[in-house]
């Protein structure tokens, strides 16, 4: 879920709390818990302000957050390709066997 939060934030300069909550279909409490953890890790920044007269919480990905997301996606892609290579090698050895 935290990867999903970082992914949404990576595609925009800032995103409101409510938009992110609706997009990921989370409850306020659940999203808050994830955000607190990500904020403590300096992966995102929380900016409180007003949109007209309505109080709004804006969320912004930090540079570390962007780098962390990139690293995590690269690790997932690496895992997929490693398992694919391993299964291809396994299939080859099965075919070569007499």
């Amino acid at each position, binding site marked *: 879920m935290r990867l999903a939060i970082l992914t*949404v934030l*990576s*595609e*925009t300069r800032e*995103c*409101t709390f409510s*938009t992110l909550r609706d997009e990921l279909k989370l409850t306020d409490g659940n999203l808050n818990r994830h955000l607190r953890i990500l904020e403590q890790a300096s992966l995102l920044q929380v900016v409180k302000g007003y949109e007209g007269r309505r109080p709004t919480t804006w969320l912004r990905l930090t540079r570390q957050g962007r780098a962390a997301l990139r690293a995590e996606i690269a690790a997932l892609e690496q895992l997929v390709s490693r398992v694919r290579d391993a299964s291809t090698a396994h299939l080859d050895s099965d075919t070569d066997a007499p």
Partner: protein
Amino acid sequence: MDQASKGQATQTLAELERLRRRTRIRAHGGAWLPALGIAVLLLASSALYRHPFAATHSLSVDSPYWAGLPDEQRDPLASYVFWFLCTPLLLAAVGAWYRWRSRSLGLRVAWPLFAGTGLGVLLLLAVLAAVPTQQQQQSDTLNSSPDHFWLAGLLTPLLPIAAAVVALGWAERSRSLTIAGGWIAILTVWLCGWLPMGYLPGWATDLLGGDLTGLVNGTPNSLGGQVGWRPGIWLTLMALPLVTFAAIRGWQSWRAASGG
């Protein structure tokens, strides 16, 4: 165990990609309006020229080219007012559009960078154009800084527009918009940097004519030539990528909004 991890990783990657794409379309779906606005501004500037499309035998060109391109303008003051009034107005309208979108969608785009670049480069143009130039009397002709003609030729309101489009491309994370801005800049530098407008050096004429011997030897066979198009055609060419982008992005945005 490994196959299960692979399946889970593949599923996560696919889900993230779907989320990324959906957010991108929503967040950057509003780029069609500034692109269309700039295209309209470029096309509307055709009206600043005395003969925007019709061929003419004699021309009187004043520098700086307040109309945009080095061609005979109807009234330099009207050209000046057009760019220095309409550009900030357009940027203000685009700012209002992005503010409205961020309120209704809850997603913000780095549009102040676009507006800041457009206004900043326009201001820089005004400052550079106001720098006093040394004038030289040569026989009966008065030349303004003939040694710096090339640089003086770049004092045109089309360059702030090109810079703004490049900045818009960065803000909207759109390579197409960045290329469209580069296209406007390249055409502007070429058309305004050398006279007559549309001038082709010898090597370029050889290249277009398929005669590569001059290019290989380093001595062009041709003396050069000129693309004899009028400002209206060049402005249409500049605006074309923006209009195409606006049409495609507008359609994508509309389709996403209607749940397609």
